């Protein structure tokens, strides 16, 4: 069918003078003169231009926008490394309780014991899952957790009179790892992977120096492989006095199976928005608590939530703390959701998550193996990578084309072109929450796409055709940046 009325007009194009979506009260106090109270140079010269719309139109606008989305609730979303699992609704219910949403961060602790108890208990749950001694809930996101952790490591060395400023990172790492190091003033050295996709221990031995502060590893890594040498890696680092950092992006594969602390990890971050089912919200908010071994605990951000003499309190008395990395105490609303999730699952449920996540990934990998190249053999952990190299070489169909074609089938594409060491890479993470039927359907569609690459490659090049727009001109977007609407003056 011909697409008519394609555009949803921008808010600014819908504006009708004099309209408003709210009905605010009259001023019920004697009015003071603004111009007498505030110097004219500090007053707005002209009223701020904002759209003028009745509530009905605001509602229609954002509702229509929401219909131009793919989401976990509506679509299979096997986006590797992002753990797009189902977001249980009881989490949202809990986070929306007015008792939680109405808390002011500077209230007397006596008035906010419920929220503090939740934070304290979440701390304990995350400490146990990590097998590490103390958790800080402050960091606002995964990358923020990485940064906080690197600051903690740095403070630890300074306290020992050392100024180590070099961090080792495997070539499979997320881009946030090197970026977090740079933000913390650390220099990055890349450690190669073996042909099997694991950390090359010889290269590690060659690159570690007395200036190495830490190595950041993701385990299982971004290829979906568990590095069985993790203890050895920890030993190599510890022998030189360096710290082992775990990027916890992939905790969904191992929680309840193995504890990072038991593998020699000194510090790690969690992504509550991946592993613990808090929704991704089109990019955020997430939360990136960090867990540390005992020797690093004094350096965690302050204040720490604590339980003393039957009362939850803020412990500001942490003289070695790195200080604050975020205003107030962290992403509390995200913590409520994660806490609710962990309490719903309990000890057995947590293990069941990683069991099923790994089962689903291996099942899907097996089903795709006949049609796509698997650069690393199964079994995998919670995710695996396939390469569309064959489709590219034989038929000119790239990973990007396959991704766009999946959209036409109502499936959100996997992560593409990452990790960088696999060409035409597609990184697939089904998660534990998808049904067998969904997995089978995805496999069947991927099979059909592989066949169509042979029989009708144009289909892939033209995709997507079911979306409100066809392929977007990103080159134009970058060459002629248009980042805001301009009112006609």
């Amino acid at each position, binding site marked *: 069918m011909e697409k008519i009325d394609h555009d949803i007009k921008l808010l600014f194009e819908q504006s009708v003078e004099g309209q408003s979506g709210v009905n605010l009260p009259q001023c019920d106090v004697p009015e003071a003169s603004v111009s007498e109270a505030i110097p004219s140079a500090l007053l707005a010269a002209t009223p701020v231009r904002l759209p003028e719309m009745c509530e009905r139109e605001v509602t229609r606008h954002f509702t229509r926008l929401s219909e131009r989305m793919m989401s976990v609730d509506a679509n299979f979303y096997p986006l590797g490394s992002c753990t797009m699992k189902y977001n249980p609704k009881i989490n949202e219910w809990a986070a929306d309780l007015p008792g939680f949403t109405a808390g002011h961060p500077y209230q007397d602790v006596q008035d906010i014991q419920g929220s503090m108890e939740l934070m304290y208990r979440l701390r304990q749950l995350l400490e146990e899952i990590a097998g590490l001694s103390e958790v800080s809930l402050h960091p606002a996101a995964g990358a923020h957790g990485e940064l906080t952790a690197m600051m903690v490591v740095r403070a630890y060395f300074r306290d020992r009179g050392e100024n180590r400023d070099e961090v080792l990172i495997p070539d499979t790492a997320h881009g946030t790892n090197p970026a977090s190091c740079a933000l913390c003033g650390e220099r990055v050295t890349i450690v190669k992977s073996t042909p099997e996709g694991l950390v090359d221990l010889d290269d590690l031995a060659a690159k570690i120096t007395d200036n190495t502060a830490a190595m950041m590893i993701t385990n299982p890594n971004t290829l979906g492989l568990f590095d069985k040498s993790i203890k050895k890696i920890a030993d190599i680092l510890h022998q030189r006095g360096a710290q082992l950092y775990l990027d916890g992006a992939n905790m969904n594969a191992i929680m309840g199976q193995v504890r990072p602390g038991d593998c020699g990890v000194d510090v790690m971050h969690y992504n509550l928005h991946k592993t613990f089912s808090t929704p991704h919200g089109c990019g955020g908010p997430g939360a990136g608590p960090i867990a540390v071994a005992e020797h690093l605990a004094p350096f965690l951000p302050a204040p720490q939530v604590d339980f003393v003499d039957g009362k939850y309190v803020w412990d500001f008395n942490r003289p070695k703390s790195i200080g604050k990395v975020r205003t107030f105490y962290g992403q509390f609303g995200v913590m409520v959701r994660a806490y609710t999730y962990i309490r719903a699952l309990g000890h057995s449920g947590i293990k069941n998550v990683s069991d099923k996540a790994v089962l689903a990934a291996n099942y899907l990998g097996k089903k795709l193996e006949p049609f796509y190249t698997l650069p690393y053999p199964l079994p995998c952990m919670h995710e695996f990578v396939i390469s569309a190299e064959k489709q590219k070489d034989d038929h000119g169909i790239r990973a990007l084309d396959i991704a766009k074609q999946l959209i036409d089938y109502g499936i959100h594409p996997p992560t593409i*072109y990452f990790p960088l060491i696999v060409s035409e890479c597609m990184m697939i993470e089904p998660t534990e929450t998808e049904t067998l039927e969904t997995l089978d359907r995805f496999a069947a569609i991927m099979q059909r796409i592989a066949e169509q690459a042979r029989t009708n490659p144009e289909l892939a090049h033209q995709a997507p055709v079911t979306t409100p727009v066809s392929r977007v001109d*990103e*080159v134009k*977007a*970058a*060459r002629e940046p248009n980042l805001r609407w301009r009112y006609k003056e």
Partner: protein
Amino acid sequence: MPVPQDRKYLKTHEWFKPEGDLVVVGITDHAAQELTDITFVQMPKVGTKISAGQSFGEVESVKATSEIYSGIDGEVVEINEELSSNPGLINSDAFNAGWIIKVRPSDTSQLEKLLSPGDYENFI
């Protein structure tokens, strides 16, 4: 397509063409095609001192960035202003209109150490 014979090359895909007492610098067509559509060129200011082996700028596509290296020491005397509004010139005409900077070399003998057109072609 053979690369122009009137200039020298680096393995990092830059070309260096003598022009009077100046040297014109750009990136090769091969590099431009690898990068796909170039969206932005970060150029040094006129007057900047650059040196062999060091990066003096950057070319960007939508999903990648690549540093531009110099093979010679010298001072930037002109930059290709056209690229600010039309970075795609490098894609369409890397060896001519897509030039990036003009340099006054401090030691012209450095040019001799760079790759010949033949060597560069063998390299790619």
